[in-house]
């Protein structure tokens, strides 16, 4: 019998020690810090967490954590995380993407993960640009942003991921700003604890291809009102705000996805009888 109380896990216990590939000043460093602080606040054992990502700068996140992780193919983090959570409901599953990975190539999966309301937390680090491929417009890039791929701008309006998430049935919707580590930590801890599908858009500046985003720290502000449990009201708020309200916008109480593999698998089952004539 051990009389020693279990050590309290610190944020640093969740880091793998692998040096990130991110540029100096990248917002994603702060997201990494916030994720480790959030899971430390919840005292989740690192081996019981799985962080699943796709492709892009932000999707490098799992390798920097001391949890289980999967760095899959471009756009498919949510399905992979969904399969894992169905197979292993005992795990805390966190999915990480960027705006290209999550909203463009993986956009369809966002709709269905929200609709399914599976109990995972989806973090999208949104910098309104493809960073890893060096500066192409994404679904959240402003229409007049000049790039080599779209000289003079795309002329195409960005879409509104939070409204899409609300319309698709996400059970928890929040916006955070990477530079606000304290607030992001709080929001992430709440998102992880909330049952069903939790979606957190984290404004995370790309200092290399979007140096203008250094101003975001002066633009973000807490929402003027508390979160709502009314999805329509949340959608209206988020469509009419300035895009820089941070904090929890919506908390729902929809039943979460109910399919899962049982811990004790029945290996005695026999379906031979149904084929007997």
């Amino acid at each position: 019998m051990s009389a020693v109380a279990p050590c309290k896990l610190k944020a640093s216990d969740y880091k793998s020690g692998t040096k990130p590939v991110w540029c100096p000043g990248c917002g994603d460093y702060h997201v990494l810090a916030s994720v480790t602080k959030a899971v430390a606040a919840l005292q989740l054992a690192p081996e019981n967490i799985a962080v699943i990502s796709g492709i892009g700068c932000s999707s490098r996140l799992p390798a920097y954590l001391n949890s289980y992780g999967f760095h899959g193919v471009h756009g498919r983090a949510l399905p992979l995380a969904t399969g894992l959570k169905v197979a292993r409901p005992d795990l805390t599953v966190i999915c990480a993407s960027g705006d290209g990975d999550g909203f463009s190539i993986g956009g369809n999966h966002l709709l269905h993960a929200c609709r399914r309301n599976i109990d995972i937390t989806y973090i999208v680090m949104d910098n309104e640009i493809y960073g890893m491929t060096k500066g192409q417009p994404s679904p959240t890039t402003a229409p007049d942003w000049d790039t080599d791929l779209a000289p003079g701008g795309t002329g195409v309006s960005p879409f509104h991921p939070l409204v899409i998430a609300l319309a698709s049935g996400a059970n928890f919707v929040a916006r955070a700003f990477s530079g606000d580590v304290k607030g992001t930590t709080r929001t992430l801890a709440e998102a992880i604890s909330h049952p069903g599908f939790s979606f957190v858009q984290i404004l995370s500046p790309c200092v290399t291809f979007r140096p203008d985003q250094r101003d975001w720290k002066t633009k973000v502000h807490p929402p003027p009102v508390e979160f709502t449990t009314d999805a329509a009201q949340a959608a209206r708020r988020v469509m009419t705000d300035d895009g820089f309200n941070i904090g929890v916008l919506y908390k729902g109480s929809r039943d979460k996805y109910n399919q899962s593999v049982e811990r004790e698998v029945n290996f005695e089952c026999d379906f031979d009888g149904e084929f007997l004539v």
Partner: protein
Amino acid sequence: MTDRPAHSFSVALLGKGGTGVVTAGDMLLAAAARCGLYGLMIRAVGPQIRGGESAALVRLSTSPVDCLDDRFDVLLGIDWKHAERILGDISVDADSIVVTDPAEDEVPHSISATGAEIRNLEMAGLAESVTGGRVNMVALGYVGCLAGISEAAISHAIEKNIAVKGRAAVAASVAAAKLGAASATSSVPTLAVRKEAGDRWMISGNHATGLGAIRGGVRFAAAYPITPATEILEWLAPRLKDAGGALTQAEDELASVNMAIGASFGGVPSLTATSGPGLSLMIEGLGLAVCAEIPLVVVNVMRVGPSTGIPTKPEQSDFNAAVYGLHGDAPHIVVAPTSVSDCVFTTQWAVHLAEATQAPVIVLSDQFIGQANVVADPIPAIAFFAKRKLAENVAADFERHAITADGISPMPLPGTRGGQYTGDGLEHSAGAKPSGSIGDHNVQLDKRARKIANFDYGQHWADIEGDGELAIVSWGSTASVVREALQRLPDDLAAKLKLISMRLLLPARQDEMAAALDGVKRLIVIEQNHTGQLYRFLRAWYDLPADVDTLHRPGPDVFRPGEVATKLAQWCRQ
């Protein structure tokens, strides 16, 4: 050579949607099974979702059969509306009997011109004479009698099939079938019915695939509907739940393959099933499973391609996609069932291979095998189970992709303390850290190739029949046709032949093939595609005799056993 074997009886039931020919075909097959016979049925349908013409193509036999005959003994048309859409699949001749209702349109000229005996049967009239009687039951009774199946067996099959509709419905159908039987006079040889026959199973290839998956230990399936693979997933949905597993419907095939990878990463043996277009979408995910070393089974029920192709018809044209479709050097396994019943074994083996090698396995079934319903001997259980080499007690210097002699590295499952790693589609070091180094790339490529190449596949790589010096290599549903063709050849010719039905298509088994071809002078490869895909693969990867022929043609014009027997006889004598 094309003579019909006396032990087999083929009947096609044709009718417009709603006439219930497929139900009648199912009952005929079940009744035959009760009489100790074997058999097979496929549905032929027009392009419509509902309505339109459909046909039940049934073959009954005193011994197991895995393909249709070249011709039909009996073609019964409840009506002939739009029949031309299906008649291409149904060959009749002067020895056939064509049954028609005089109240309906005349038999199409293409049929009557064959010289077949045309018989009138007032199916609608007889059905109307029984309250609640149905025309398909009159047809069932008639053809059952021609085949020599007892009325008791027919009645039993009716009762079993429609008991849920109530006793009155059963009684009406039995009465209608008896009226049909009473109208039949036979001029074709009836089948020798055995009284003390053993148990029989009635099973489709798609259901057999599901059974093999569950027997092998699959407990998660991701599903996206596609013809002709959907029945695998529909069969699995409730049964996985009964077995403590789960099935999730995905939003597309990109999602389904990645869901299966995620579940398998979590430690649950996982499968998804699709057909050609879906396989194309899953190929990137298959490469991820190769690189991250995740066990995965993808069943591809091949249909006519490319693109949407002919979704309801068979072809063996996805060989190249399955073998060569992945980008990069991506060692994986491709297997194919050699008959409908073999779907159980091959799928169960695929689960075993995927779990043991921590790699993706593609099962190449096809529309014929998948959707054919056979009456067969009960399919025994085998001892292949999902068994993954796990890392349970993890040391501090643990490496997920450690270099091992057999190339297989212990895999920690999430929840295992100290085993934390990130599965990755990026090339990585043995310790699972992303790596762009030449050294890491080379050792990981070697390791992943070694574990697939050196695995012990035993004798299951192929089914080998005969010991002649002229060899035939075939696979999938075509192998079943060739197997029967050999049985039809005269003994002196058959003794010259050896059939190699390949179950393991990738990796190539050079040593086993060399042993199988020892003393073989000539070889012919028979398959159902336009370019001879397996033939070209064999020429690339195997040492073959100097004289190699190929017999291939695209689907949906499936090979028939009499036709193949004729061609093989000519080839033998060359």
